């Protein structure tokens, strides 16, 4: 398997956004992912219509701690008497909004910094990579907790902190690709023609990385949604908003376990699962579309590594190793082809 060629293929596989969607649809697993994501977006947008009660409206609250019934399919909360089913629907909004916004923001920042590091090289490259190393070492969750304490508890702060930490993975991946693209013919031609750096970066290199960005972003969104649930669970989100993580926190604090109200815990958990699962599906399928040589059976593996930010590293490390391996002693018996990435 020649990984370098495979990646160039990813970069070069053409087609617009619509054709991408069409290809996803044709893929059986992709179809499921698309349908699920579509459903979630629909639920989020149409929340006021779909939810039987408005959980923000205190006049629509019922008795506290009701068990599931026809009136309230998932019962009501013990602490405030809000309808859990409606809260579940409204929670979709926050999760999707945070996930997609953060994903897009990370895409911008990560791609920009990655391209700069890869193409300009030298000092910029060094600086950006050092920053990446420092950010990777600081424990993320404690830092987010400290920052929300200092800057206030709002979703804006959470998105900000996620973006601050999340761009590192994408930047490294993009950088590695850019290093490859830098040496391709059409880029060299443009340089010879006298095009400015920024022109080359935006017109030639960036489009080449677009598919990688989209793929990465989808998977990042999935990861962010899980992380946001965790933060809301710890009580760091906006106290007036309704989110799945916050529902879980309320359930635990309100004594759902004591009262035996397992549905209050199951519902938001299922919501988180669905949202993350559907985005993951799409991301994995996109990868197969862009890179048909990578088999489906290894995709989950890659996903898992990706969420730890080291899938692509590993691929590129393996590229470096292949080069060094080619000059190694052929009788050397230990020859792992797939090496682990560097940082969590």
């Amino acid at each position, binding site marked *: 398997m020649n990984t370098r060629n495979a990646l160039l293929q990813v970069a070069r596989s053409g087609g617009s956004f619509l054709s991408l969607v069409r290809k996803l649809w044709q893929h059986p697993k992709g179809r499921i992912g698309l349908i699920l994501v579509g459903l979630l977006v629909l639920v989020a947008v149409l929340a006021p219509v779909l939810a039987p009660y408005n959980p923000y409206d205190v006049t629509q609250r019922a008795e506290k701690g009701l068990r599931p019934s026809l009136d309230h399919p998932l019962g009501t909360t013990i602490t405030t008497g809000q309808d859990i089913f409606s809260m579940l629907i409204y929670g979709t909004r926050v999760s999707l909004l945070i996930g997609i916004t953060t994903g897009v923001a990370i895409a911008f920042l990560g791609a920009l910094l990655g391209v700069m590091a890869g193409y300009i090289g030298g000092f910029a490259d060094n600086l950006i990579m050092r920053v990446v*190393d420092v950010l990777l070492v600081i424990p993320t969750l404690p830092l987010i907790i400290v920052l929300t304490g200092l*800057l206030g508890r709002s979703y804006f702060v959470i998105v900000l902190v996620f973006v601050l930490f999340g761009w590192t993975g994408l930047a490294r991946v993009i950088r590695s690709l850019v290093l490859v693209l830098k040496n391709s013919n059409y880029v060299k031609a443009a340089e010879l023609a006298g095009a400015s750096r920024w022109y080359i970066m935006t017109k030639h290199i960036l489009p080449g990385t677009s598919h990688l960005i989209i793929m990465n972003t989808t998977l990042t969104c999935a990861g962010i949604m899980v992380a946001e649930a965790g933060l809301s*669970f710890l009580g760091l989100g906006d106290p007036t908003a309704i989110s799945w993580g916050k529902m879980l926190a309320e359930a635990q604090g309100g004594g759902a376990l004591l009262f035996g109200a397992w549905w209050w815990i199951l519902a938001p958990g299922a919501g988180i699962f669905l949202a993350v699962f559907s985005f993951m599906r799409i991301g994995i399928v996109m990868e197969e579309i862009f890179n048909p040589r990578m088999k489906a059976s290894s995709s989950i593996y890659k996903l898992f590594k990706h969420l730890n930010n080291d899938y692509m590293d590993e691929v590129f490390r393996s590229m470096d190793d292949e080069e060094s391996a080619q000059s190694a002693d052929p009788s*050397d018996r230990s020859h792992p*082809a797939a090496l682990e990435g*560097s940082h969590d």
Partner: protein
Amino acid sequence: MKRSYVIKRILYAVFIFFVVLTLNFFIPRIGVSDPAERYYPPQGAMSEIEYEIIKQYTREQYGFDVSTFQQYIRYLQDLTHFDLGTSLQAGSPKVTDLIGQRLPWTLVLSVTTLLISLSIGLLFGTLAAWKRGRWQDTTLLNASTISVALPAFFIALMLSFYLGFELELFPAYTNPNMVGQFDWSWKAIQVVFNNAALPIMSMALGGIVGYSQTTRNSVIAVTNEDFVITARAKGLSHTTVLYKHVLRNAMLPLSTSIGMSISGLIGGAIIIEQVFNWQGMGTLFLEANSTKDYPLMMGIMLFLSAFAILANLVTELFYVILDPRVTVGDKR
């Protein structure tokens, strides 16, 4: 040369540590005009003038009366004595003491989870690799998909509910006497693990899946290598091939993966510890956060960062030792 590579990596780790140090010093000062304000006692019945005197005295007591730069130097000096500061808790315990009290308990959770995930993961992974394409393999894939999408704290809540409250197999919440009554007796150890069961189960699921996948793919990759095919062609039994050649070589990437997880070992359990009320570093951090005990909070963060840097460094060096091919500026 290997040695220069090792020295380079060590120096680089020190540099990163220094940057993290500095960040750690400045973060609590973000957006705060007077960093000593957390230490002032309540004004109570004091007049304005009295209160100013008290504020000045407090500043002197805690070292805020000098310039920021001097505070920074003092901070560095304290660090050379491994003094991470004094907590704001009543009785002013040292941060290092508090960390020392709670760290072993977090390690109990993390290390046990690591061992279990590793052992089960290795076996599942090898099995899946051996049975590639069959039901064992696809089950693993499906399990992986699901486990990534299910947050660990959700699993923790469900386990706490069913196994803890409903079936009463394990305590749904950690017994608060567990720490105080621990006396290294066999009974006390049993109690500890009984309480640790549910937290470990919640964390182990993701770990098992991860290590299984890593092992599976390593094994598959190695199995396709020439030397394995050679060994098989020689007529060696599957067992010998498996243990002697495949696994030994698949271990290498796995060990780097383990190294990486160790750095996340301590900080990663915060939410789980909170769900089960486990008295470890995670809950210590959350307590410090609720009382705005910044010396303790930043002390813990520095400790975690230092640990991560150290773990990464050790792993990289270990890797260098293990894999003779990875050298910098090799003779070729």
